[in-house]
């Protein structure tokens, strides 16, 4: 509790500042963008339909199994339930107002630099044009694909992001609190960050030229920051870290990891929103970085502990997938190897040494892998996007500037997300409470929250 209050104070100023600029921005003048007339491409559509299925597959059953295997057997269903219900809930929220808040580009205008006031509110969050998907006609297109597909594809990102955070507070948070947290977090954190990064000209990150091809900031740093705050706020699991808490079923975790890997092709190569060279190269570099991170983590364990473990290997893989995410549209194979290796080693350090040193209980390493891996990836994107390093986006001379921009992207996301997550969690704690009773925690969440048992 002391820690969390401390956290609150520390960032209170920044939060206040943010709030002010958001309100201030409301008074700026919106403007309209013009579109060319695109036509539907069946190949692009085919790939995006598939990519959408793949990203959904990442959450159910991919991430669910990955996380589910890591907890105690008495809590396995609670994790599966949280992932499954979040999937359903985010789908409805996205349908009702999320897509609009994220992708309504009404009133956006390109603005140089950090000029908050000029940009207007809609540089930070979308309008309400698409409430209830009004206006998403069957024949509407986004680029060369039906807008319905784009809506669903983006929806799957809005699903997995809050689901990732589950890893931080697993095994002790009330189910009702999870749902309320996810709803508020989606509304006040995910939707605006998504808008700032991906909605196009006039959006903060977009205008600044921050590179985030497939969601390094929107998904991973965002989820990672919320995860860190959440595990601090919810507190440690009973007995942590004295009592060992080994994964109850690693075969489940490895299965989930395989599914995440496969599904991530939809995530990264799907972010090309086309079946083209960008998608192809995104798939290739995703594969390479993941492999490199897997081997890096394995090697780190082998060196440090004398034996490599499959939990290490799969965690490394996820770290690699996370790190290549922002980079996957702008780096080449060699950049991918470096990003993968870096992510493997650094996340290994974060999830083992750092976590133990600082003592927070990020139960399934949502911060250690997604937060840290996302940061590593975002920064190195700024390096390996350079054409002389095999990338496709920037000049060698601009590496320094781009790395700075990447850092800004990470920092703004981290701070904004951290502050708002803190407020949300605090509010929940003060009202219905975040945490189950000690007795319920001992008995397990499956029986006490859901009246069922994973295995008979």
């Amino acid at each position, binding site marked *: 509790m002391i820690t969390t209050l401390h956290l609150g104070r520390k960032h209170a100023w920044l939060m206040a500042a943010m709030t002010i600029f958001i309100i201030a921005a409301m008074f700026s003048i919106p403007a309209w963008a013009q579109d060319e007339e695109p036509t539907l491409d069946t190949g692009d559509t085919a790939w995006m339909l598939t990519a959408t299925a793949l990203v959904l597959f990442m959450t159910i059953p991919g991430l669910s199994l990955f996380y589910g295997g890591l907890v105690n057997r008495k809590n396995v269903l609670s994790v599966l339930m949280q992932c499954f219900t979040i999937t359903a809930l985010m789908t409805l929220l996205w349908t009702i107002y999320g897509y609009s808040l994220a992708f309504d580009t009404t009133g956006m205008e390109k603005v140089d630099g950090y000029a908050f006031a000029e940009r207007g509110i809609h540089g930070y969050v979308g309008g309400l044009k698409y409430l209830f998907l009004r206006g998403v006609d069957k024949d509407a297109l986004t680029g060369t694909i039906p807008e319905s597909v784009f809506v669903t594809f983006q929806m799957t990102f809005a699903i997995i992001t809050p689901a990732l955070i589950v890893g931080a507070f697993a095994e002790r948070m009330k189910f009702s609190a999870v749902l309320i947290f996810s709803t508020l977090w989606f509304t006040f954190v995910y939707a605006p960050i998504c808008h700032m990064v991906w909605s196009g000209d006039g959006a903060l990150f977009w205008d600044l030229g921050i590179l985030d091809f497939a969601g390094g900031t929107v998904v991973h740093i965002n989820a990672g920051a919320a995860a860190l705050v959440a595990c601090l706020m919810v507190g440690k699991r009973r007995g942590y*870290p004295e009592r*060992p*808490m*080994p*994964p109850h079923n690693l075969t489940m975790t490895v299965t989930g990891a395989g599914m995440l890997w496969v599904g991530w092709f939809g995530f990264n190569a799907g972010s090309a929103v086309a079946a083209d060279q960008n998608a192809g190269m995104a798939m290739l570099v995703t594969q390479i970085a993941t492999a490199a991170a897997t081997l890096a983590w394995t090697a780190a*364990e082998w060196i440090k*502990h004398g*034996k490599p*473990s499959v*939990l*290490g290997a799969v*965690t490394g893989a996820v770290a690699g997938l996370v790190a290549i995410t922002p980079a996957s549209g702008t780096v080449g194979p060699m950049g991918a190897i470096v990003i993968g290796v870096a992510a493997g080693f650094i996340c290994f350090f974060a*999830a*083992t*040494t750092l*976590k*133990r040193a600082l003592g927070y209980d990020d139960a399934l*390493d949502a911060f250690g892998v997604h937060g840290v891996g996302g940061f590593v990836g975002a920064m190195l994107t700024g390096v390996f996007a350079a054409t002389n390093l095999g990338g496709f986006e920037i000049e060698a001379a601009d590496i320094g500037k781009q790395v700075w921009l990447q850092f800004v992207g990470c920092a703004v996301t981290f701070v904004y997300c951290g502050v708002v997550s803190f407020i949300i969690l605090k509010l929940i704690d003060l009202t219905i409470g975040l945490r189950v009773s000690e007795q319920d925690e001992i008995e397990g969440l499956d029986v006490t929250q859901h009246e069922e048992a994973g295995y008979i």
Partner: protein
Amino acid sequence: MRKIEAIIKPFKLEEVKEALSSIGVQGLTVTEVKGFGRQKGHKELYRGAEYVVEFLPKVKLEIVVSDDQQTQVVDAIVKAASTGRIGDGKVFVSAIEDAVRIRTGESGDVAIS
């Protein structure tokens, strides 16, 4: 009657059962247990969290025999289950006052033969 309880290494189960069958033991009951003793456990490591597993998988056999079979049964178990390595396990002997075969209701020595 006597109850012989033997705690052995799991991979010895088959051999012990053979040995007992060959001296005419008609029935026994087996339970998977975890044993804590002199045998050192192994280390497991999950994302840097070390976890010394001190409870090792063992198998417990329970065999109820007539008093005169006791020595023979204990010897057979000790012989078949021994590897000479630490952790081979123990045999405990205690008294049983009565036995009943559920199917027939017979009791006493006849219930276990």
